[in-house]
C-alpha cells in the first residue's frame, strides 16, 4: 500500500445491484460492476489481464473479509465469490485461496462456502475468541494505551507465514470510535490481536493505531488490492449492525490500491448520509454529545470519534488524503 495506483479509485454504481426492500443482490449486475471496475482501474480489456496485475498462479491469496456487522452487513458473498472466481481463472488452486476473519461466530453466520468453489479455505483466526495461537509471536506492534498489561498486538500468522498477496474487502460503515470503517480499519484491526484495548470509556486511540498497524510489514506490502463493498452500509452505530434503521444501500463497489484515497471517499458517503438523516457529524468531538449506552440515538456519540485516522495514515505514506488530488472514475452499470 498504496500500490501502483495512489490517489486513484474507481467507483462502480448501479441502482439495480441490490433491492433496497428485500436486500437481495442481483448477481449478474454485481458481476458486471466487478468486471467494469477492475478493468477500468487497470486499463485492461479482459478480466483475466486485469486481475493478473495483482496476483499470479503461484500466489497464496488471503481475502480479508469484514463480518463485524454480520449476518446482515458483511463483505457480500456475491462480491467475494466473483473475486474467487477470477483468482481461480488465473490458475490459483482453490486450496491456495483463504477467506479470513478474526472471529468464528461472525464468519460462519455468512455461509461463504455457498459462494466459492470447494477447496477454498474459510478461516477464523481466534478460535476460541481471545486465543493468541493464530497470531505470529514474532511480529507485533507494542504500545501501552491505558495501562493494560498486555501491550502487544500480534499480526495474524497466515499473513506472515502463508499469504503472498492479500485482497481487502471492507464495507461502507460508520464506526463509533474510528468515525468510519473502511479499508484501513479492516486491514489494520482485522489483522492483529488485542486491538479492542485501544478504546476505553470515551477515549479511543484509533487516530494513530489504525495507520500504524496497517503500515506494518509484511501486511502493508502484501495487501495489493482494495475492493470496498458498498452494496449495503451502516450510517450509525457501526461497526455492528444491530439496528435495522441505520442500514442503507450505497449500491456501489469501489476499487483501488490506495486505502487512504478510498477511505477519504467513504468519509463523504457516511457523512452525507448522516447529515441527511439529521445525525451528528462524524467530526463532532463535543463531550456534551458523548454518552455510553445510547447507540440508538443519532445525536449521541459513543466515543470521541477519530475520522482523522485516515489523514494520519496518509502521512504515514499509505496513500493520498487530499480530495483534490484523488482521481475517481465513476462508472454507472
Amino acid at each position, binding site marked *: 500500500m498504496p500500490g501502483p495506483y495512489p490517489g486513484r479509485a474507481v467507483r462502480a454504481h448501479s441502482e439495480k445491484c441490490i433491492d433496497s426492500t428485500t436486500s437481495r443482490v442481483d448477481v449478474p449486475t454485481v458481476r458486471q460492476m466487478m468486471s467494469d471496475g477492475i478493468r477500468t482501474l487497470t486499463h485492461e480489456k479482459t478480466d483475466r489481464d486485469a486481475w493478473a496485475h495483482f496476483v499470479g498462479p503461484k500466489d497464496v491469496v488471503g481475502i480479508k473479509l469484514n463480518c463485524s456487522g454480520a449476518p446482515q452487513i458483511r463483505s457480500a458473498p456475491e462480491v467475494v465469490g466473483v473475486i474467487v472466481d477470477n483468482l481461480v481463472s488465473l490458475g490459483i488452486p482453490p486450496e491456495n485461496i483463504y477467506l479470513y476473519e478474526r472471529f468464528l461466530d461472525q464468519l460462519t453466520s455468512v455461509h461463504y462456502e455457498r459462494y466459492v468453489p470447494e477447496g477454498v479455505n474459510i478461516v477464523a483466526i481466534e478460535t*476460541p475468541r*481471545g*486465543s*493468541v*495461537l493464530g497470531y505470529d*509471536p*514474532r511480529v507485533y506492534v507494542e504500545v*501501552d494505551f491505558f*495501562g*493494560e*498489561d*498486555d*501491550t*502487544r498486538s500480534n499480526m495474524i500468522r497466515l499473513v506472515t507465514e502463508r499469504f503472498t498477496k492479500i485482497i481487502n474487502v471492507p464495507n461502507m460503515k460508520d464506526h463509533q470510535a474510528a468515525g468510519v470503517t473502511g479499508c484501513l480499519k479492516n486491514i489494520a484491526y482485522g489483522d492483529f490481536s*488485542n486491538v479492542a484495548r485501544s478504546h*476505553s470509556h470515551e477515549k479511543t486511540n484509533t487516530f494513530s493505531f489504525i495507520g500504524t498497524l496497517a503500515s506494518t510489514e509484511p501486511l502493508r506490502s502484501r495487501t495489493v488490492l482494495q475492493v470496498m463493498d458498498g452494496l449495503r452500509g451502516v450510517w450509525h452505530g457501526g461497526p455492528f449492525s444491530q439496528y435495522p434503521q441505520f442500514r442503507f444501500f450505497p449500491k456501489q463497489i469501489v476499487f483501488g490500491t490506495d486505502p487512504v484515497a478510498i477511505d477519504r471517499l467513504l468519509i463523504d458517503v457516511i457523512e452525507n448520509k448522516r447529515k441527511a438523516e439529521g445525525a451528528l457529524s462524524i467530526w463532532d468531538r463535543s463531550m456534551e454529545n458523548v454518552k455510553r449506552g445510547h447507540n440508538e440515538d443519532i445525536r449521541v456519540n459513543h466515543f470521541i470519534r477519530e475520522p482523522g485516522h485516515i489523514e494520519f495514515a496518509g502521512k504515514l505514506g499509505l496513500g493520498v488524503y487530499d480530495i483534490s488530488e484523488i482521481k475517481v472514475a465513476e462508472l454507472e452499470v
Partner: protein
Amino acid sequence: MIWLVAAILPALAADAPPDAVKLQAPQVEYHVNEASATTSPWVDANGWQIVRAPGKHFYYDLSASKIPSARVAPLAAAEAFVYGAQASIHTDQAGTDAFNRMLDFLKTIPGADLPVVADIGVVDDGSDECGELMNMLARRNLLYKIVTAPDPKLAVNVSLGSKEYPKEGAADPSMLAQKIRSQLGDEHRSLRVYGSEVVIARLESDGAHARVHLLNYAFRPVVGLRVRVAGSYAHQTVRAFGKPDLKLQDAAVSGGATEFTLPDLGTYAVVDLTK
C-alpha cells in the same frame, strides 16, 4: 467436609490450626455490569498474603465457594504449592479427588531450591493499603518482594508514606501499581505475560536455571499464553497439570530474553528454563 493440607507437597489433614490465616477461594470474578477503575477481570489471588506472613499456616474454606469444588480445590493446592505455603483446604469429596490429582502432579515436579526473582521491593508497613498494593502488583505480574528497607539491588523500592509514595496515593492501588510499573519500565521487567489477564506468574532463578510457575485463575483453559523471561535460556521444559503431552511453541531466545508460548494452559503449569 474434608480438610486437606497443602504444604511444599500437600497432604491430607484432619483440621486446620486455630491461628491459621484464612484465604479466599482463588478465582476470577467478572463484574461486567459494575463500574470500576479497570476493565480487567477481578482475580481473587492469595499469593500476596502468603508471602506477607512467612511461616504462618493458611486455610482455604472452599465450602462457600460458588465454584465447583473439583475446580477450585486443585487451584488452591497449586497456589499454596507455588508460594511454598503450608495450607489447609476445606472441601468436599469431589474437591478431595481433584486435590489428589493435583497432588499427584505436583509430585512429578523436580525439586529446585531457587531464589524468587523480584524487580520491586515493598517495605511492608502491615497496612491494608500496602497489602492491596501487593495484591495489585501480583495481579499485574509485577514481580516484587518484601524488604525491610530499600534494596539498592532492586530497580524500584516502594515505601508507603515516603515522599515519593505518599499514603494518599495508595487510595487507588491500581493507579499506584501503574505508577510503579512506569518507573520500572516494561523493558526492564524480569517477566511478562501476554494473552491473558487471569494468569499470575511467579519466577524463580539462580541465573543458570529459571522456573516459571503459571497459575490460571479462570476455570477454563487459556488457549495460547505468551511468556517472556529476562535471560537467555536455550532449553525449555514444561509440565502442565492435566496435559501431560503439552509442548511449548515458538520458543525464541534473543535480545537477552527467552520467550515461549503455552498452547493450552489449564489450572497450573511450570516451565523450567536452563542455559
